[in-house]
């Protein structure tokens, strides 16, 4: 829910003529002006401002702010957290998508809802849940302290909280894609003597790779940028448990705006990169879909009309 937004494929099936269904030019341009003003105010200005403020004291100050040891430690921690979180959620996403898309069982819709649940939990509440489990006062706190395992106010807590926040991204992306690629190819591979793993690596994975990549970049962007949940479990130890977003907050509270914006500019670049890859994948998906549709049309012409239209790509339009 409060998760990700996805641009769905455009399916302009019909190209209707526009006679009688156009607004007057005045009204049309009024709407465009309103939309543009709204986008400039809420999209463009915040974006440009990040870079303008980051460089407000010149390139020299910018590099100094980024190469400072505490900033560098925050960058490394953020990369580490993403490097652990994303692969774990990829494994989960692949397992969940395989089970949900390829098999029928009771309680499937409940399982789907549960997978989406982290989207609707406030990040702060998510962080609190792990404090209640692993903190000193928590249910496992005493046991962990006896065994000298530190989770809360340490890196493992940050990783676990980030896993929760990014939990649904890969699974949510893969399930519709795997559901749409029909199982005939896997069955053919199995019949021809491939093992289950061979089938998975050589048949299933290649057919869902773009959807998987889509899920990974969204998961990664959120993992690197998560603030609320991480803030609750991190303990804010400078140089040790400060991720990039937490470092930004600390600098902001110390009235060091330029340095805060310098780190923020890196995260803004990450967001732009994510958007770029996302746009590319959607364009590719659309093209593949059109190709598949054309192929299906010619296939349907030559065979019995019972064959279903292939829906090879995700068509979810909303989180």
């Amino acid at each position, binding site marked *: 829910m409060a998760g990700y937004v996805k641009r769905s494929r455009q399916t302009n099936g019909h190209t209707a003529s526009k006679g009688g269904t156009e607004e007057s030019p005045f009204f049309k341009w009024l709407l465009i002006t309103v939309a543009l003003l709204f986008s400039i105010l809420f999209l463009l200005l915040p974006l440009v401002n990040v870079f303008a403020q980051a460089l407000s004291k010149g390139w020299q100050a910018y590099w100094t702010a980024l190469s400072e040891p505490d900033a560098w430690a925050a960058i490394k921690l953020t990369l580490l957290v993403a490097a652990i979180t994303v692969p774990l959620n990829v494994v989960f996403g692949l397992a969940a998508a395989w089970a949900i898309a390829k*098999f029928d069982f009771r309680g499937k819709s409940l399982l789907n809802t549960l997978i989406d649940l982290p989207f*609707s939990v406030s990040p*702060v509440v998510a962080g609190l849940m792990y404090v209640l*489990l692993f903190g000193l006062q928590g249910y496992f706190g005493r046991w962990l302290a006896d065994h000298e395992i530190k989770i809360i106010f340490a890196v493992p807590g940050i990783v676990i909280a980030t896993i929760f926040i990014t939990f649904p991204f890969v699974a949510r992306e893969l399930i519709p894609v795997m559901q749409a690629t029909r199982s005939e190819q896997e069955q053919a591979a199995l019949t021809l003597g491939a093992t289950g793993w061979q089938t998975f690596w050589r048949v299933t994975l290649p057919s869902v790779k773009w959807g998987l990549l889509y899920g990974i970049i969204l998961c990664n962007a959120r993992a690197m*940028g998560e603030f*609320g949940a991480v803030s609750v479990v991190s303990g804010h130890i400078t140089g040790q448990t400060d991720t990039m977003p937490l470092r930004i907050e600390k600098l902001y509270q110390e009235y060091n705006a330029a340095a805060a914006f310098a780190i923020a500019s890196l995260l803004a670049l990450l967001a732009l990169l994510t958007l770029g890859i996302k746009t590319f994948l959607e364009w590719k998906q659309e093209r593949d879909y059109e190709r598949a549709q054309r192929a299906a049309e010619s296939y349907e012409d030559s065979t019995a009309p019972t064959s279903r239209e292939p829906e090879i790509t995700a068509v979810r339009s909303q989180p």
Partner: protein
Amino acid sequence: MAAQRFRVLPGFGLTMGFTLFYLSAIVIIPIAALFLKSFQLSWADFWRVVTTDRAMAAYKLTFGASLIAALINAIFGTILAWVLVRYTFPGKKFIDALVDFPFALPTAVAGLTLSNLFAGNGWLGQFLVPLGIKGAFTPLGVIIALTFVGMPFAVRTLQPVLENLDRGVEEVAATLGAGRLRTFVKIIAPTLLPTIITGFALSFARAVGEYGSIVFISGNKPFQTEIAPYLIVFRLEEYDYLGATAIAAVLLVISFVILAVINYLESWAGRYQR
């Protein structure tokens, strides 16, 4: 058709087992722990903790600001989606790609840049503050930040529905003599309304849980600009675990209710599309 077809494939036990294990460890057990902890309070104590004046002020701001932000998004998001689908104008592709920007941008960065924009010496603040419009460290700032984070949900929910809208119906209305306004009110609006409401609900849900951007822009003053998630953090910092848990339980229950409403809305909107 699915039942026999899928039986051939292996790996159900392995993938299902791992899915359930991971889901339990990361999601179900922690949520259960939170509710379990809140049961340590007697009902009377629980009620007292979650209805203090300070907590009530925080709920009011959280839900009031989320509601206003979701309304702004429903109105301007609809206009933006309409313009992006129906018209061509310079920069359209760029704006279309940029709609996802609030979603891709970490919330801390969003809060930082928005509070800077609207502060007295910021790009927008230098014009707005003399006019009495203070966008930083006020409830207005909370609304601005929540509008920012919720906007992609309103636009992206409506866009595909608009793209698939049958223009033939509009042509029929036009041929039968309906003016453009009448066609919009009688034909287009009723078709889009369920989806607009779904987008509204999604952006509302996103706003209710939001924390990162608000911390930067609101100033977090108790009774004035303090949102409910911030109050949880505040209670935690004074080691009042039960107080924090009780408020968190309230927020969690409310977000489950919103989730159920959204699921219902989506099936309702889906029915209208067919």
